[in-house]
């Protein structure tokens, strides 16, 4: 009510609010912008360093040779064995995790609604999401290697990655299945189509692009995991095309290995490994985003 009591002729009602409030508003605005800028500093710094330092060894040797017989201080050497290992391990875990996860999500959304078991499973999917990746690695170590007596292999790594992938894909699929309108299911039931065919031919196709996006993001996420692999695939510098036998390389462990060597040549290889890894992950992210966007445009 400052306007009413303000002295002087024709006091302005609309002129302005009190300077204190205005300053507070501007200060908060400044802080909020600052928060965003602060977050951009590490992102830009990381990407800048990965690109500028990664190009030093971005040559054919890096993608065609392994580290076999190459010491840390030597120039040359490459990540061929690691790239092969990562692609195989991630492919295997995708093959195992995706069907399992999609079926689980189907159970949760299509069959288990309001059932106690579904609530329990849903709860443990949440718990599983929070499992530290190193614990997943320890579990495979305890189960696959120490109990069953298998030796280090790419496949053991895949199993650990599978554990990390499962909950993410279950959640993503669940979200997508929930978005499928119930009218669609009812329309199908009304035609006398059994439930499983409704799910396979009506619900899943409708949710398909969303599920693909979720899977791609999950793949991108596990691809950068290092900790569980250290405990399961061990480290090798040689090419091993067979993920089921013997230690195998992987890009993240390749970076880990090279970074622990103080020689410049090794550090350079680590950066190029990081560049390769980030490039693959960003491509997957970008592709997932494109799919989502195309779907949005198509549905308009």
């Amino acid at each position, binding site marked *: 009510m400052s306007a009413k009591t303000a002295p002087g002729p024709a006091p302005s009602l609309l002129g302005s609010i009190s300077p204190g*409030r205005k300053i507070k508003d501007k200060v908060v605005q400044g802080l909020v912008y600052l928060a965003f800028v602060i977050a951009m500093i590490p992102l830009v710094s990381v990407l800048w360093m990965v690109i500028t330092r990664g190009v030093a060894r971005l040559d054919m040797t890096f993608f065609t040779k392994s580290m076999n017989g190459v010491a840390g201080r030597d120039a040359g050497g490459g990540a061929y064995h690691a790239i092969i290992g990562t692609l195989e391990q991630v492919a295997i875990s995708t093959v195992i995790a995706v069907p399992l996860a999609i079926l689980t999500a189907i159970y949760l959304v299509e069959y288990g609604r309001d059932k106690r078991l579904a609530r329990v499973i849903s709860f443990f999917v949440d718990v599983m999401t929070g499992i530290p990746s190193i614990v*997943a690695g320890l579990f495979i170590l305890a189960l696959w290697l120490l109990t069953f007596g298998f030796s280090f292999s790419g496949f053991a790594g895949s199993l650990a990655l599978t554990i990390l992938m499962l909950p993410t894909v279950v959640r993503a699929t669940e979200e997508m299945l929930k978005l499928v309108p119930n009218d669609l299911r009812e329309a199908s039931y009304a*035609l006398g189509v059994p439930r499983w065919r409704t799910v396979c031919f009506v619900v899943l196709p409708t949710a398909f692009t969303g599920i693909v996006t979720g899977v791609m993001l999950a793949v991108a996420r596990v691809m*950068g995991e290092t900790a569980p692999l250290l405990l399961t695939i061990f480290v090798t510098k040689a090419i091993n095309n067979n993920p089921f036998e013997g230690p195998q390389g992987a890009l993240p462990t390749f970076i880990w290995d090279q970074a622990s060597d103080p020689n410049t040549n090794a550090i350079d290889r680590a950066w190029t490994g990081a560049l390769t890894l980030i490039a693959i992950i960003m491509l997957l992210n970008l592709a997932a985003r494109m799919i989502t966007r195309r779907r949005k445009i198509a549905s308009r």
Partner: protein
Amino acid sequence: MTSDTGVESSVAATSAGAAQRRMSTGRAGDKIFANGALGSGVLLLAIMAAIAVFLIWKAIPALQANEANFVTDQEWNPNAAPPTFGIAQLAFGTVISSFLALIMATPVAIGIALFITYYAPKRLASGLGYIVDLLAAVPSIVYGLWGLTFLVTKMDDVAVFLNDYFGWIPLFGGDSVGGRSIFTASVVLAIMILPIISSISREVFAQVPTANIEAALALGATRWEMIRMAVLPFGRSGMISASMLGLGRALGETIAVAMVLSTAAGISIHVLKDGGNTIAGNIANSFAEASETGRGALIASGLVLFLITLIVNMGARAIVARRKEFV
């Protein structure tokens, strides 16, 4: 999603019609499919149970061989004869680095969420959100490499500065401060948990009813006053659980921490000093040289980590669930 219902129901109708024509073994198929779905769900539960069972089982022999008190001892010498190891220092390092990360990340993350939801132009909002999410796409090994080669050198100066001017705060005290410290590790962790806290906060803010925002503005509230009146009270529990989920992530983070820290023994609250260690970091660093008992000891420490993250995550979920009941 509602706008496409019309188009897709016609698609569904035709594909459902096609399905009907091909249908022959409806009941049997239904049963197999339902059981497959159920089986997958149960398998998931079995995996969870197996994780707990096998970690405990493989930890027991090492714990029995342990000559020191596992809970209170600060040394980690499981490969020695006789083996002596305790979780105290590792657990301390894990918790304090994660808490520091949380304290640094939460205000920034909420600031980012507010910026994207209420300050940035609407056209840019989703793009800006995507850029922040990119922080989450960078693998931890890359943060580790960046931390080791770049951040550590910068943090040297920061540590000296903080120690000189704020050394009277016990946390920043001590002498011979350096870059490869718990403090640096928590900066890296803060960066890594920033996107998860900010994206959950954004989701919460997006749910604030427009009616409440308009009510505040119509009373003559500035943008900040509107946020304080309508947004923050509504989103409080959401923000708390977001930061707890971030905390859970920080507790379990391994590689970046293992690369940044130069490990040293002993509990110290002087977080600027080089050294310190975390459970996860210790597993990554000492696995390669671990003996059989050593591996068991590491598994035992992993079990402790698992328990801590479990408690934190379940707490976060409980807050979210309680909020759903009330709002």
